[in-house]
Structure formats: C-alpha cells, structure tokens
C-alpha cells in the first residue's frame, strides 16, 4: 500500500512538472479534455501543439515500458457497451464543466481556483458513490 502511494507521488511529481512545462513553453493550461476536444470541430491554428501533446501521452507509456522492462497493464471493463456509455458521459460532462481530472483536478487546484475545487469535489464524490453502489449492489 505504501509502495503504491510512493509510485503515485513520483508519477504525480512528473505530472506536475509536465503541467508546468506546458504552461512555460506554450502559455496554456494542460487540460487534456480541452486539448482533445479541439480535435473535434474546426481545427484551431495551434492544432500541431495539440497533436504533439496527445501523441506524447502514449509515448510516455512506451517509454516507461522500455525503462521498467515490464508490461504496463490497462484493465478495462469487459462490457464494450459500458465503455461506450462511460466515454459518452465523460465526453459530455467534461465539456459542460470545461475540464477533467487534469484541467480542474491538477491545474485548477494548483492555481487555487474555487471553480476547479467545486468541480473536483463533485466528480470525485460522484465517482466514489458510483463505485460504492456497484460494490454493495454486487
């Protein structure tokens, strides 16, 4: 349990560094739902930055696989229908709220935004509730 926490802390520090680097080089908040949403609709002039960032994400997984010499597991729910429904909810929800775990949860809290604190508290509470209902409903 301590091991998982420390890996989280180390990975989190890298995420914080990534968010800072993105601001220092591009002048933008590293909100992943916002960056990815710009792929839909008309592409803005900064499309190449968006694509570079979004290609970097899977690159990071491949890099960790090469460094650690181990597979990086991604356990998904067995139901494709559940994956699609969850994806729709996450897409619509993050667009309405203008941010997700990165934009509100990390960047927003790091700039002490009350709006992001409210968003983060809401999606955390609802997600915990969903998991609790699923646990107790079997």
């Amino acid at each position, binding site marked *: 349990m301590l091991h998982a926490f420390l890996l989280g802390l180390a990975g989190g520090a890298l995420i914080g560094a*990534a968010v800072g680097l993105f601001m220092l080089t591009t002048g933008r908040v590293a909100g992943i739902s916002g960056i990815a949403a710009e792929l839909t609709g008309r592409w803005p002039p900064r499309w190449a930055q968006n694509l570079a960032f979004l290609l970097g994400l899977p690159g990071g997984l491949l890099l960790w696989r090469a460094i650690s010499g181990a597979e990086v597991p991604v356990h998904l729910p067995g139901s494709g229908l559940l994956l699609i429904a969850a994806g729709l*909810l996450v*897409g619509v929800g993050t*667009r309405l709220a203008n941010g997700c775990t990165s934009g509100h949860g990390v960047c927003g809290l790091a700039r002490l935004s009350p709006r992001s604190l*409210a968003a983060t508290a809401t999606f955390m509470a609802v997600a*915990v509730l969903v998991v*609790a209902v699923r646990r107790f409903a079997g």
Partner: protein
Amino acid sequence: MKILGALASGLLFGLGLAISGMVDPAVVLGFLDFGGLADGTWNPALAGVMGGAIPVAFVLYRLAGSRVPAPSRAMDARLIGGSALFGLGWGAAGLCPGPALEGWVSNPRALLFVAAMLAGFAVVPWLAGRAGGARS
C-alpha cells in the same frame, strides 16, 4: 519550439500516468472504492498523484507568473452538472480522458471509450448551437 514543448509535456505527463498506475483503471477504481479500506484492498495511488502533482504545478505556475489565468469563483449548474456526469462515467469505467488517450497503446479496446468520448465532446457545442439558433 512550442510544438517541442507540447510534445515533451505530453511525454512527461504520460510517463507520470504510467509510473503512478493511473493509466490502469483497476488502480483508479481501487482508490475510489473506499469499501476496500475494510478488507485491505484500498489503493492510495491517486492520493499520491494529487499530492505529488499539485505542489509541483503550483511552484511552476508561480514561475510562469501572469501567463497563468486568474482563478475564477463563478459557479453555475453547468459546471456542477457537467462534473457530476463526468464522475458518473469515471466511476463506471475507471477511465478519465488522459489515461484513455494513453492506455490504448497497451489495450486497444480503450479506443471504444475514446471514440465515444470524442463524440461526447462534439455533441456539446452542437447542442449549444442548436439551442442558440432556436432562441434567435
């Protein structure tokens, strides 16, 4: 230069999600499942991630100074309702946008989630446009 900065940021972000285990929905759900505190299966990794990321980002945002957008106090039903819908999807599958846009390289089934998420992104401005059109 900005493109290189964006690529390096994405790589670093992706590396952080992979090392912390956040790219694996099982680890995220292991945190969200507080019932696991009773049977010893609770996974604190996500708490570590927030504890590591926010202070580092806070310091670097101080360095960036006035380029960082000023925090906003504005609250509305759209922010809270949208966040609740997001939490519903996040809790159901254990996936949020970053890990989904990264994890497909390890488990291509994540692309089902990604495709649905992109459709969700697209539908919001489309609906807003229709609502605006109906009003005018």
